[in-house]
């Protein structure tokens, strides 16, 4: 309210001059705010340009064909091979395990919270899930390596210490809250009248949940699952700590593998000289990672818009 008072105090000034001043100030402030908003646009442009330019340094020395079809990734040894498939395979393996854990558990939890739970239970459970989502990933990595891996090795004695299974399962636990909270939001948004119609026909709570609510909320649920997958693909510290650093094209979750993210970290840890092929590889891998997650995010947004039931 200060400025309103000022207007009265400086009555000696002509109203016209005052108005001109304030119009100038408004214009300056609007430009400043616009500049803030444009930083985010420049961030995106910056990411794309930097990844593309640095990756170009890599593709000058290695053909795109070899990068996408080669089945060996040995940039640090002689003879060097630059086939990215083992890294992509490792990424999809761990992310796949994570999704196998997170989707059934996360969806079931969402159904429980949205259709079964009393308000009091929901108020106790949801903060726990929020905390689970907020635990730093380096902590999950520690948990996978020092707790889950020894446990699993009792069941699978020939399992390697660094393996895809343990990392994938812990990653799954990490993304449960994401699947459950986004799916729950979608289910809560389904109107009560649809449920009541189901109950009116004599359906049980389970039947209403799975045949009425879930189909009506399918766009939100699928979007949640895709976002969770994208998160798992981009997840870094768990796989760096627990999944190993041996790029290998395998479907065996008991073996040591390497993901795209873990490779980037491995190279970042050693101070690889700026300008070498080894240095540029992380940008080529990063570019691929960026496009994979971007496609999934865009697809999930498109899916929500395309298949949303309107009430």
């Amino acid at each position, binding site marked *: 309210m200060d400025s309103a008072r000022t207007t009265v105090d400086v009555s000696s000034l002509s109203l016209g001059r005052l108005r001109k001043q304030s119009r100038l100030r408004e214009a300056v402030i609007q430009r400043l705010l616009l500049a803030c908003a444009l930083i985010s646009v420049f961030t995106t442009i910056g*990411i794309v340009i930097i990844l593309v330019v640095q990756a170009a340094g890599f593709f000058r020395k290695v053909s795109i064909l070899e990068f996408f079809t080669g089945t060996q990734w040995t940039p640090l040894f002689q003879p060097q091979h630059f086939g990215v498939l083992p890294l992509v395979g490792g990424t999809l393996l761990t992310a796949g395990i994570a999704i196998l854990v997170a989707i059934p558990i996360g969806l079931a939890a969402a159904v429980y919270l949205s259709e079964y739970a009393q308000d009091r239970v929901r108020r106790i*459970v949801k903060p726990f899930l929020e905390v689970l989502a907020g635990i730093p990933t*380096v902590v999950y990595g520690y948990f996978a390596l020092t*707790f889950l891996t020894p446990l699993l090795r009792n069941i699978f004695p020939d399992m390697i210490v660094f393996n895809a299974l343990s990392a994938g399962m812990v990653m799954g636990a990490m993304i449960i809250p994401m699947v459950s909270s986004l799916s729950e939001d979608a289910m809560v948004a389904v109107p009560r009248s649809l449920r009541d119609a189901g109950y009116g026909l004599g359906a049980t709570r389970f039947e209403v949940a799975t045949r009425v609510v879930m189909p009506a909320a399918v766009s939100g649920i699928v979007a949640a699952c895709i976002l969770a997958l994208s998160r798992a693909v981009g997840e870094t510290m768990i796989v760096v700590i627990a999944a190993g650093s041996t790029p290998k094209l395998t479907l065996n979750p008991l073996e040591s593998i390497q993901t795209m993210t873990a490779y980037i970290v491995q190279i970042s840890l050693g101070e690889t000289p700026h300008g070498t092929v080894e240095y540029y590889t*992380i940008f080529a891998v990063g570019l691929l990672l960026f496009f994979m997650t971007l496609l999934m995010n865009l697809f999930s947004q498109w899916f929500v818009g395309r298949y949303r039931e309107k009430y």
Partner: protein
Amino acid sequence: MKNGSAFQRHLRIRQITGYINGTLFFLATLTGIIVLIVLIVDVFKDSLGWLDWQFITSYPSRKPQEAGLLSAMFGTLWVMALTALFSFPVGIGTAIYLEEYAPNSRLRRLIQTNINNLAGVPSIVYGLLGLALFVQALALGRSVLAGALTLTLMSLPVIIIAAQEAIRSVPESYRLGAFALGATRWQVVRNIVLPNAIPGILTGTILAMSRAIGEAAPMIAISALVYLTFIPVSPMDRFTVLPIQIFNWVSRPQEGFWHLAAAGIIVLLFVLLTMNAAAIILRNRFQKRTEE
């Protein structure tokens, strides 16, 4: 009669199916809580006897018994302070622009889609951006400043989205009332919208910060794995942060370092918990005030 009993039998099966599945759904919900409890108990158990004053006040060392996280803690404080300093004004500015200055324009839709997508970019990609842009192109080196700028870009989308929600929750009638009294747009924003939205904005910002300081991946790309035995005193100094220090200890083969990692995790979780508690207290105080 026969039909009736078939229906009864079927109904019984349906009810049992429903009951069993309901129980399964409940157990699934418990899974998350159980994982959380097991994780915290496990870390606590591993850290027993290692988390002491000497651990907090020592520099990293080759001998697990003498090692501590002093340099990592100061590094985290430095990075956190600078990140907050940069991301808070820019984040709020963007949110104000989107909510108050550019409603329904094509530019707004572009920026909004862009922010939503940025929120989904993996953190390691921000690390690569920071490495090429701040460390190399702008020649900031592997400094605190480069780290803070990287974390700023990473946490901005989250802060902007939280600030937008807070600004949107200010009733439209407040704005209209002020406009009717002849206030300019900026006067409305400064005197009406921001004072009402600031608790919500702060809550969202604190949560975004707590997520940012737990991030190891982009910080590793910026700072690499350093063995620091000094506290950074200027923004241009080299640094390490708590998650990197923890990672460093986890990745050693000797068991002794795992205990150090566990102790480091307890310290990190304590910092995060404090920040989250602050955010919750702020949110509750704000809710009480609006109810009055």
